């Protein structure tokens, strides 16, 4: 068995390095609503941010990544659109599409997915997310409550699977009902997309156990992850299914560990007080995953070193850019080793990211991925032990 390694598409803007949030590529970065020019110099060459995203997708497939996660936030372009736009000009890049089931009719979603499979030769996959909740959920026009949303997710995936092979599928759920539904040929002969599933609450785990191929989590303290993976695998085993686990992690990999930390130190030094205060505060989300990461955070920070939580693990990544807090910092060998450590405690796939995503796709693909042993590291351990 081999592990799958994905890259990330920075739909949420792209500074030119981890050292500073500016200058940047594309037309958006946190806290600035006014930037509109997609060209780096602010000129108008007729390019849009999608042109840059396309370059990253090409870099990722050239460098040996499976494909990429295309995050969706209120300020980003949408992954369904990006995937369809890039379908024709990519060869092996797999489009990992995050979406919240409540936003789409499930039969429409099945048709969209089957069409995308046809357009790409089966390169679409899902990252099913069920929403951070709170006021942001109503920004999206979604009024369902937290546990209700997981019921809806389960029903949604029941229907997408039910109609996928054609035929005549009926379903009476709380949120969705269909009568005699089924995709038409040739939509009905496509491969069903792999499902990466996010969510840390009990309701999420129950839904994931039923439908997910991969249980996807942010990086958390390693022992905490080991327990989490064991729990989700146990729940799934009880249902007679097998589930794999995947970790989404930002990295800073350099030839030496010193160089890697120097990069982080420069980024930390350029962090302004407002960003640091926000980092130490609490947001309004009811996401359990966000709380699990927040729990590991110190209350005062004077140096980037205060945020080193275990060897080569730094918990200040969202000071450098939005998103998760914890990531891996180290030499190429160390980063590969930490990924192998994660494989040993249950990870079967990774979504990696580093800024800037274009150049770093080549660096990580050329310097780190060849050092990762993946499942081979498990066999080695068994042989020694």
């Amino acid at each position: 068995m081999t592990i799958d390694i994905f890259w990330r598409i920075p739909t949420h803007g792209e500074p030119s390095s981890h050292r500073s949030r500016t200058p940047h590529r594309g037309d958006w970065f946190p806290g600035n609503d006014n930037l509109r020019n997609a060209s780096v110099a602010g000129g108008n060459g007729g390019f849009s941010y999608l042109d840059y995203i396309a370059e990253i997708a090409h870099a990722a497939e050239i460098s040996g990544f499976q494909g990429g996660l295309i995050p969706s936030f209120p300020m980003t372009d949408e992954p369904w659109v990006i995937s369809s736009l890039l379908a024709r000009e990519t060869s092996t890049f797999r489009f990992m599409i995050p979406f919240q089931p409540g936003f789409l009719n499930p039969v429409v979603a099945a048709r969209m997915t089957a069409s995308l499979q046809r357009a790409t030769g089966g390169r679409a996959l899902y990252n099913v997310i069920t929403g951070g909740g709170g006021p942001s959920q109503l920004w999206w026009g979604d009024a369902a409550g937290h546990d209700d949303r997981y019921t809806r997710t389960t029903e949604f995936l029941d229907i997408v699977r039910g109609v996928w092979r054609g035929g005549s599928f009926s379903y009476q759920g709380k949120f969705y009902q269909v009568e005699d539904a089924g995709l038409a040929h040739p939509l009905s002969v496509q491969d069903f997309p792999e499902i990466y599933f996010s969510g840390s609450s009990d309701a999420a785990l129950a839904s994931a156990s039923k439908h997910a191929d991969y249980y996807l989590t942010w990086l958390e303290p390693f022992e905490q992850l080991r327990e989490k993976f064991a729990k989700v695998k146990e729940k799934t085993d009880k249902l007679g299914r097998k589930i794999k686990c995947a970790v989404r992690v930002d990295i800073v990999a350099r030839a030496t560990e010193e160089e890697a930390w120097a990069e982080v130190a420069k980024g930390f030094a350029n962090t302004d007080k407002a960003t640091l205060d926000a980092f130490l505060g609490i947001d309004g989300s009811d996401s359990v995953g966000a709380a699990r990461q927040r729990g590991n955070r110190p209350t005062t920070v004077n140096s980037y070193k205060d945020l080193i939580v275990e060897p080569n693990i730094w918990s200040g990544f969202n000071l450098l850019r939005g998103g998760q807090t914890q990531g891996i910092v180290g030499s190429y060998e160390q980063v590969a080793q930490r990924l192998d450590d994660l494989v040993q405690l249950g990870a079967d796939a990774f979504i990696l990211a580093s800024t800037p995503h274009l150049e770093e796709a080549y660096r990580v693909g050329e310097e780190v991925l060849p050092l990762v042993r993946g499942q081979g590291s498990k066999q080695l351990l068994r042989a020694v032990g």
Partner: protein
Amino acid sequence: MTIEFIWQLPTSGDGRYSHADVTRRGERATPGHVPFTDGVSDPRGDRFNYFDYLHQVARAADITDFDGVLVPHDLEGDESWIVAGYLARGTRHVRLIAGFDAGWGSAVYAAKNAVSFQRATNGRFAWQIVQGHDAATRRRHADNVPDADVLARIDEFVTVARGVQTTAPYDFKGRFFEVQGGGFRGPLGGNPLPPVYLGGASEEAFALSARQADVHVLDAAPVDELRPHIARLQELASAQGRTLAIGLRIDVLAREDAAEARCDADLYWSQTRQDRASGERRTLVGSYDDVEQHLADYAAAGISSFVLGATPHLEEAWRFGEHLLPRLRARLAQDRQAA
């Protein structure tokens, strides 16, 4: 008012003799179907499929200077948003009109996806929101809205989609959609709204278009039958203080001479098992001169958006683009000056 010519893409199949069930271009129409004899090797395997063909039809419309392509709402075919995205980067100037019904999903999510299209295509994306099918068909597609609410939901869908694209913060609470503190900001705000194409023959549909549509597309009918509808639509729109373009969805079968056109039309209708009367109602059949005259008559009656189609769609896009578009544009400019 400028006149636009839109080419309708054949999302559910296309072929030389309209036998799309046998010769779906680019892919095997039925599993296991082998088009060549045992004596000839076929290098294609399954490397190509229908998307490659649709791409070529869209390119034909783009190169021959159509104003847009319509990816129709087709519950049995490929999903229109995905098709439109697939075609976007291979085309340069055609408007990409995706057809769908308002049961697609959240109006906010639709608007947000539309903004991504606009940003990536320099504002070439448009919506054709259709009323769709009967209640039983809707239930087959997980959509339980009753007949009486179909238009009301389109109304709300357009309101909310426009609201979040133009206003932040945006709040709305209706019968079908609810938003709190919504609205797109930063690079997602202030993008060109996708023009909205609506249709329908009822007074209620006309009234909805008068309030919400950029274009109301009428089904094919003789020009004299359309005049009262055009007048009514314009009357309702001006009562709202709006201008509404009127469109016409019609097939064309144009040849160098009328006899050739008639012969091909009869052949086509017999192949597709359509009776001649309904075929004639749906299709302009004639010489290039005849078809030009018919279209000019529609334009004079107030039609400014022509949604055209002909089988096979690749060859006929080139034919219409080469033989009719240049002379039509010259003719319509002349007619406007004379008027």
